[in-house]
């Protein structure tokens, strides 16, 4: 087990390395270097450009030097906690994304928990009562949930709440807490707001995992070990929960590998629609204004987040499944 975990941990290093390269390429993609556009913004705003400051920045980021040097400087910076400077916000990137990153993680984890908490029992129900009216109902619902992109759900929800109650369901805080320092009251307020975006974000995942759990369990239910357990004299409910559900859980857990990237991805657009103070809207504006260090930092962090999620799922899976653990 320990060896397996170590092996998976080691695999994270090349993965993150490749991710950093891809991110850096994306940062570099817009024509011209960002400093030029920075100067252009400053000048168009009628500000005086301080040549000394420009030169200092140029040296710091290695602009004008070969690409690999620039990459190296960027990576070294990132490793020491310096993600560069946001030209749009005129602040270090680290200060900007810290809290938003935390909120993004909170949102993604909350939706993931919601996805599991809802899809697991429904999937079991649908499989055990295959072709019952309830099964048909959930099958239909999950097909719709799979087909409707979650930002459309968010749009409709916003419209519905606004036109029915004249209120906005967006945001993660009540106005009085939005800029307040963290306190117990703010945490409670946050939790009371969190569930709506988390639910919107979770819909697609719930629909997908209901299908997966149902199919997995339907595969397991006719297996011989279930009959064995029955022949021992076990009650039907405890039997289903102890054996086939437990076995069907493994492929289910392994889906975290793509559920989490999906949730992180989806959270970006949903956050834009629901106007959440997460990294999504900030990434969007950063990309639109080519504030590339900010955008790059967010891209990198989101990707690493999903790598960590996949790592957790693999370890969880090994812990659940002896066949993997002992190999």
């Amino acid at each position: 087990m320990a060896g397996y975990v170590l092996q998976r941990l080691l695999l994270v290093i090349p993965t993150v390395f490749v991710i950093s390269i891809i991110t850096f390429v994306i940062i570099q993609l817009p024509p011209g270097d960002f400093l030029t556009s920075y100067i252009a913004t400053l000048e168009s705003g009628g500000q005086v450009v301080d040549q000394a400051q420009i030169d200092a920045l140029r040296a710091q980021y290695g602009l004008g030097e070969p690409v690999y040097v620039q990459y190296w400087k960027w990576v070294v910076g990132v490793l020491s906690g310096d993600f560069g400077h946001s030209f749009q916000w005129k602040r270090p990137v680290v200060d900007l994304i810290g809290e938003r990153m935390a909120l993004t993680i909170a949102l993604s984890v909350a939706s993931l928990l919601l996805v599991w908490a809802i899809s697991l029992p429904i999937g079991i129900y649908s499989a055990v009562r295959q072709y019952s009216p309830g099964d048909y109902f959930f099958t239909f619902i999950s097909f719709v949930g799979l087909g409707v992109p979650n930002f459309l759900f968010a749009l409709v929800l916003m419209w519905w709440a606004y036109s029915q109650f004249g209120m906005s369901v967006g945001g993660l805080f009540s106005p009085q807490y939005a800029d307040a320092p963290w306190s117990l009251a703010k945490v409670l307020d946050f939790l009371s707001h969190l569930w709506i975006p988390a639910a919107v974000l979770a819909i697609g995942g719930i629909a997908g995992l209901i299908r997966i759990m149902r199919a997995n369990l339907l595969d397991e239910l006719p297996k011989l070990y279930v009959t064995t357990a029955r022949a021992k004299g076990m009650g039907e409910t405890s039997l289903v929960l102890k054996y086939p559900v437990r076995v069907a859980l493994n492929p289910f857990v392994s889906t975290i590998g793509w559920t989490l990237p999906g949730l992180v991805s989806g959270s970006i657009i949903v956050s834009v629609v629901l106007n959440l103070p997460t990294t999504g809207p900030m990434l969007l504006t950063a990309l639109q204004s080519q504030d590339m260090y900010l955008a790059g930092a967010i891209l990198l962090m989101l990707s690493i987040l999903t790598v960590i999620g996949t790592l957790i799922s693999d370890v969880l899976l090994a812990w659940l499944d002896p066949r993997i653990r002992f190999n």
Partner: protein
Amino acid sequence: MTTTSETGTPEAFQPADNGAGKAASYAAASEWRLMWYKFSRHRLAVICGIIVLLLYVVAAFVEFVAPYDPEAQNPASAYQAPTRIHFVDADGQFHLRPFVYGTSSQRNLDTFELEFVEDTSARHHLSLFVQGDDYRLWGLFPSNLHLFGVEDADARVYLLGADRQGRDLLSRIIHGTRLSMSIGLAGVVMSFFIGIVVGGVSGYFGGTIDIVTQRIIEFVRSMPTIPLWLGLAAALPSNWSVMQVYFAITVILSLIGWTGLAQVVRGRALALREEDFIMAARLCGTSRTRIIFKHMVPSFMSHIIAALTLAVPEMIIAETALSFLGLGLRYPAISWGVLLQEAQNLRSVALAPWLLAPGAMVVIAVLALNFLGDGLRDAADPYRR
């Protein structure tokens, strides 16, 4: 089981008295027929197939199907609600042909909103094949014939309401069909090329090559797609033409979307690798590329078609999302995602909920393609279950 004698494939085992060549094509045909039989029993999939077909026909003839020029503005009709279709007139008389009343608008000086009143003095009957706004079909053939509309050019019918500039939303949605539906196809075709090369090579050669490509695919799959899409799309120069952006977006979508198809291709190729006819071809000295393209590709066609169909809706959703965020297609292009941008403003949506209609189109198209793909996938395995 003991049922083989009854349910075995009767055609395939009939004596081949017409010569081997004919018998072979007969057997092949019967396999396709078997699939078609299985597919046609899946009623929902058939209905969805018809919807998808209709959508693509509409996409092909948008200029003709749309009642109006999608860019024709009419400030007096800003946010006009969907026109009501009547069968019974103001005097309570029934008319067999549906008709609409003209609408006049007035600005309410208190709220500054336009208010619309039906003018019941004149009926305007809806008819098929009316003359209206000029257009060039596919940019080539000039015409002014539209599938339906009202004869009187002054009375405009807004079946799905109007947007902020008083443009007919229905016409815009119909025009959006072309880009939204085709970008899904184009993206899938391109993904498919990457997928078939990578997946085919990986599945065919196996061994180290397979392990390496599997790692790559796993890696790409573990990346959050939308941020990458956003990052790449944001790098597109803002002065590119609609066509350039369209192709760039297609490339971006397929750069990330190919992995699923590659895995399907690989799985099929692995299964086929062991089959006898590949070995036979190899013994005959056929080259490897020839084996891949001549023998392996055709034999997993059916699975591929199903996988492709299931990949199209993902692309459609991705394009819609990108355009909705302003990083995909942009004005003057019309796609459902571009149209949905107008729905970003909560106040306009509250005033004119029909601005969400492009979203409904996305849902219809995506669901139809999903169900169709599901039916195709079941049919691709005629012997299963």
